[in-house]
């Protein structure tokens, strides 16, 4: 299984542990991700699109044009990149005027976008190309007794008109992986509710309120931890959790992991290779539950 890999800007920086744990898990599952040479920012949801839609679409098109020479589907870890690239692909396929405008811009830069490469999320690959049964076969440390709240966020499943490999209202792909690695997947109403996303930079009070609701919802159903496939959601739930606690005078103490980190633990991989020291909220209480218990250095 070989794919063209679009890491995205977050996975290079604040979500580095997501990329690390994905690569560690890939070795176990026999997945090869070949990085798209000299990839650029996808245009990031509305960040560039609201400023200049054709610019945003052209940034996405440059990535597609490089990947097209690799003759492989593109895979990304980031839900925002997945949404942005999927939206660009759909808009350029369906609107000839827009395609003409972007073709002209690409031509100026000496590039050509044909639209042959398909963009997929890594979670889609795990569920549909690898499959839960093969994932279950690789488990060395079953996470028995661990109650996990899967948090999908918005962009991996919505809007369904753009592209979706899972149900937009009741996604199950991450639940299936959690069950395959021996943990208990919890169902709760807020698993696709918005965390506040980039409001962390533009209106933090709103974002803190939204993130608080997700955290409390998972806590109310007795979750030991939350897992997510999205760097933006992970940042708000994990790095901003202390701010939520301060603002609302709460004690939440909810570990937040990327689903790839949890898979790595079940595969018995070295915690250092999974970047577990980079998570902000302590993972101690869930690592102690594992048999044998795992210790992780606080520093990355």
């Amino acid at each position, binding site marked *: 299984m070989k794919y063209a890999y679009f890491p995205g*800007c*977050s996975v*290079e*920086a*604040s*979500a*580095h*542990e997501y990329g690390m744990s994905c690569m560690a898990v890939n070795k176990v599952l026999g997945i090869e991700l070949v990085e798209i040479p*000299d*990839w*650029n*920012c996808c*245009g*990031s949801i*509305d*960040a*560039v699109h*609201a*400023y*200049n839609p*054709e*610019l945003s679409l*052209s*940034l996405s098109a*440059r990535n597609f044009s490089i990947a097209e020479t690799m003759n492989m589907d593109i895979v990304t870890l980031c839900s925002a990149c997945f949404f942005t690239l999927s939206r660009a692909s759909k808009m350029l396929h369906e609107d000839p005027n827009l395609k003409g*405008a972007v073709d*002209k*811009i*690409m031509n*100026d*830069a*000496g*590039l050509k976008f044909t639209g042959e490469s398909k963009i997929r999320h890594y979670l889609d690959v795990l569920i549909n190309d690898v499959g839960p049964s093969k994932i279950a076969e690789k488990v060395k440390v079953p996470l028995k007794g661990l109650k996990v709240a899967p948090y999908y966020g918005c962009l991996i499943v919505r809007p369904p008109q753009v592209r979706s490999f899972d149900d937009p209202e009741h996604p199950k792909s991450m639940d299936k992986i959690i069950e395959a690695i021996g943990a208990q997947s919890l169902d709760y109403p807020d698993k696709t509710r918005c965390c506040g996303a*980039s*409001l962390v*930079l*533009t*209106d933090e009070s709103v974002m803190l309120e939204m993130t608080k609701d997700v955290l409390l919802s998972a806590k109310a159903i007795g979750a030991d931890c939350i897992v997510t496939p999205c760097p933006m959601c992970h940042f708000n739930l994990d*790095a901003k959790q202390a701010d939520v606690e301060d603002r609302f005078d709460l004690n939440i103490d909810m570990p937040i992991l990327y689903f790839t980190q949890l898979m790595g633990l079940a595969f018995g991989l070295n915690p250092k290779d999974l*970047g577990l*020291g*980079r*998570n*902000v909220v302590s993972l101690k209480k869930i690592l102690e539950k594992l048999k044998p218990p795992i210790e992780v250095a606080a*520093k*990355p």
Partner: protein
Amino acid sequence: MENKVPAKIPTKPKFHKAFTEIVGKYGRMHEPQLQVKLMKKTNPNEVLNNMLFGVQMYRKGKVKITPSKIKHTKDIETIFRSAQKKEEVKK
């Protein structure tokens, strides 16, 4: 923005502008620069408070001090120039 409708969250257009400027410079996002750039424009008094948060994140390996820059920045320059020219013609 195009029709001069005031933004409900006044910092949003500044966010879009700051984000786009950084991508135009490096071809990729550099999170610390976005944070500082936006804060300088919207809430300069918060720069120091947020630096403490930045140090905590740095210790966790979540902050990349040096921006990641693509090799073919000329591609990005041309894409920006052509797209912005088209936008000006529309206006």
